[in-house]
C-alpha cells in the first residue's frame, strides 16, 4: 500500500487527532491570512486615496508671502534645488516619505495663452516603492486640456517654448481645476525657459505617517525641517489617509507581537498531537519494522501525515481567513468593505507554507517514532 493511502486511512480512523490538528493550524492560518488580506486592502485603499488627493506635504521657501501663495497656487520665491537631495538624505531621521518631487512653477505667456508652466524633477521614491505621478523626460511636455484646446495641440505634436523644442507626450483629460492650464515639463527645461538655473519653488512629498500617533506630525516636521532646510516651511495638506494609516500601524504592531507567539503555540500544538499519534501507533511502528520496512517509510508516514494535514488546513484556513477579513476587517481597519477581496496569493503561499510548517512541527515526534525500539513494543503482553 502506498504511503499516501496509509496516511489517509489512518486519518480517517483517528478523526479527533486530525480534527484538533486542523483546528490549531487552520485558526493560525486564518488569523494570518485575514490580517494579510485586510492589511493589503487597507494599503491599497490608502494608496488610492493619497493618489487622488495628491501630495500631502508641501515644502516652500520660508519667505513666501502666503496671501500670494494661496492666490497664485505657488510660491513666488525660490529655493535651491539642492534642498531636494538634502531632504531625501534626511529621510528616516524624522520621517519617511514614499515620494519626493521638486517643482518650479510660474505663470508664463505661451503663444498668447497664460499657462502655468510647471517643471518637475525626477521623482525620488523611497526604497522599494514605484514612483508615481508624472515622470517627464527633458524635451517632453504634458499639457492640460484647456491648453490643448486653445493652442490646438495634441499628443505627438511638436511645440516650441522660447528657444527650446518639445514634443507633446500627453494631453490630459479635462479636470475642471487649474490642472487644465498647466504645462508640465522637466525641471531643467523649466529652469532654462524661466532663466532660473538650479532653482525650485516647492518640494512635494507623500509622507507615510511613520510618526507615532500621539505626536503631532506637523509640529515635529516643522522643527526638524528648520534644522534640515533652513529657509523652508512645511504645509500639510491634511491627508484623509491619516486615520487609516494610524489604524494600520496599530494593527501592524499588534500583529507583530501576536504572530510569533501564535506560530510557536501552533507548532507546539501540532507537535504534541503528532507525539500522541506516535504514542498511539507504537505497535504499528514496531510491526512495520518487523515486516522489514525502513526508517524512511516510518518517517514518511508521520511527516506525510503532517504535510497532508497542513494542506487541508491551508484550504480551510484560507477560506476562514478570507471570511474573517471580509466580516470584521472593515471595522478593525476602518476601511470600506468593498476594498477587501480574497487574496489568492496568500492561498498559494499557504498551500506551500502550511504543509512545510506542519511537517517541521512534527519533526521531533517523527524522530521519536523512527528511534523507537520496536522489540520493546512487540514483546509487550
Amino acid at each position: 500500500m502506498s504511503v499516501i493511502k496509509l496516511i489517509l486511512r489512518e486519518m480517517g480512523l483517528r478523526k479527533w487527532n486530525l480534527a484538533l490538528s486542523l483546528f490549531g493550524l487552520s485558526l493560525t492560518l486564518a488569523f494570518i491570512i485575514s490580517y494579510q488580506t485586510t492589511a493589503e486592502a487597507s494599503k491599497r485603499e490608502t494608496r488610492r486615496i493619497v493618489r487622488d488627493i495628491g501630495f500631502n506635504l508641501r515644502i516652500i521657501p520660508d519667505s513666501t508671502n502666503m496671501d500670494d501663495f494661496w492666490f497664485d497656487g505657488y510660491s513666488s520665491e525660490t529655493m535651491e534645488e539642492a534642498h531636494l537631495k538634502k531632504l531625501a538624505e534626511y529621510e528616516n531621521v524624522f520621517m519617511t516619505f514614499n515620494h519626493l518631487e521638486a517643482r518650479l512653477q510660474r505663470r508664463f505667456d505661451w503663444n498668447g495663452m497664460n499657462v502655468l508652466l510647471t517643471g518637475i524633477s525626477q521623482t525620488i521614491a523611497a526604497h522599494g516603492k514605484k514612483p508615481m505621478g508624472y515622470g517627464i523626460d527633458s524635451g517632453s511636455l504634458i499639457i492640460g486640456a484647456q491648453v490643448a484646446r486653445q493652442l490646438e495641440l495634441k499628443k505627438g505634436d511638436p511645440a516650441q517654448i522660447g528657444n527650446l523644442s518639445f514634443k507633446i507626450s500627453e494631453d490630459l483629460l479635462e479636470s475642471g481645476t487649474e490642472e487644465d492650464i498647466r504645462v508640465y515639463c522637466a525641471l531643467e527645461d523649466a529652469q532654462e525657459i524661466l532663466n532660473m538655473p538650479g532653482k525650485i519653488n516647492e518640494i512635494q512629498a507623500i509622507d507615510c505617517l511613520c510618526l507615532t500617533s500621539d505626536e503631532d506630525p506637523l509640529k515635529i516636521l516643522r522643527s526638524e525641517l528648520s534644522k534640515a532646510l533652513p529657509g523652508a516651511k512645511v504645509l500639510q495638506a491634511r491627508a484623509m489617509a491619516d486615520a487609516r494609516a494610524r489604524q494600520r500601524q496599530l494593527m501592524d504592531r499588534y500583529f507583530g507581537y501576536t504572530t510569533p507567539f501564535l506560530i510557536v503555540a501552533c507548532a507546539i500544538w501540532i507537535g504534541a498531537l503528532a507525539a500522541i499519534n506516535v504514542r498511539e501507533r507504537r505497535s504499528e511502528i514496531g510491526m512495520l519494522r518487523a515486516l522489514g520496512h525502513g526508517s524512511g517509510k516510518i518517517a514518511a508516514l508521520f511527516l506525510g501525515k503532517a504535510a497532508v494535514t497542513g494542506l487541508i488546513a491551508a484550504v480551510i484556513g484560507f477560506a476562514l481567513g478570507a471570511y474573517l477579513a471580509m466580516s470584521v476587517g472593515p471595522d478593525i481597519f476602518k476601511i470600506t468593505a468593498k476594498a477587501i477581496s480574497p487574496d489568492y496569493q496568500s492561498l498559494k503561499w499557504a498551500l506551500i507554507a502550511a504543509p512545510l510548517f506542519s511537517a517541521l512541527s512534527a519533526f521531533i515526534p517523527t524522530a521519536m517514532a523512527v528511534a523507537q525500539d520496536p522489540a520493546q513494543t512487540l514483546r509487550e503482553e
Partner: protein
Amino acid sequence: MTVTATPDSEVKQSTEKNSSPAYEVSGLEKIYPGRNGDVIALKPLDLTIRQGEFLSIRGASGSGKSTLLMILGGMAHPSSGQVLFEGKDLYQMSTGERACYRAQSIGFVFQMFHLAPYLNILENTLLAYHKRWFCSDDGKTPVERAKGILTQLGLQHRLTHRPAALSAGERQRAAIARALFNRPKVILADEPTGNLDPDNARGVFEALQTFHQEGGTVALVTHGEMGADYATREIQLS
C-alpha cells in the same frame, strides 16, 4: 560460562537432524544495564535451529523467550555472542540489510496481533508486501496472493473488515496471513495463542503446522501444553 541448551533440556528430539542449519547461535546473551543493577534478559545460550524444524521454546515468564525471538528476528542487538542465519552473521549486517532479511525471510506472529486498526484485513496482510522483492511465480498479483492466504485461513468473508470487527481468533489468523505473505523461510511466533481460547489456539497451531509441513522453519514460544504436540523439538530457557 555458557549454558548450552543441552540435550537433557531438549524434551523432544529434532527429526530434521540432517538438514542444514537455519540459525546457529553461540554465546548469545542480552543484558539491559539499569540503575539498580543490570537486568539479564537472556542468559548465555548456544543453539542451532535446523531448516524445516518446528522448535518450541519454553521457559518461565521473564526467562528471555521474547528476547530470544527478537534477536533471531534481527530486531534487538545481543549484548554478546553471535547469530548466524544461513551462515551470515545477522548483527554484522547493516540496519538496512537486517530489514531486508526480515522482509524476505521472516514472518513474525505476536500475542498481541499488532494489526493496524485503520486497515481492513486484506490491507493489513498487504503491509508485508514489498514491491522490490515480490516474486509472482504463479502469476498472481499481491492482492490475489493475500486473498488466497486469507481464504486458506478461513477469512475469505472478512477481507474488508477492520480488526475491531473480528474475534481474537480471526485477528490472529489475519496476523498469520500477514506473516505468511512474503513466503518467509522462518516464522517466529511469540505466544501466538496467549489470548485465544483452545479452539482458536488449535487453528493457529494448525496454520503453523501447515507452514512447517511445506518446509518452513518455526520457532514458537508457548506457555501452554498444546503447542508441544506440533513441535519437532523443544528447548527450555531458565
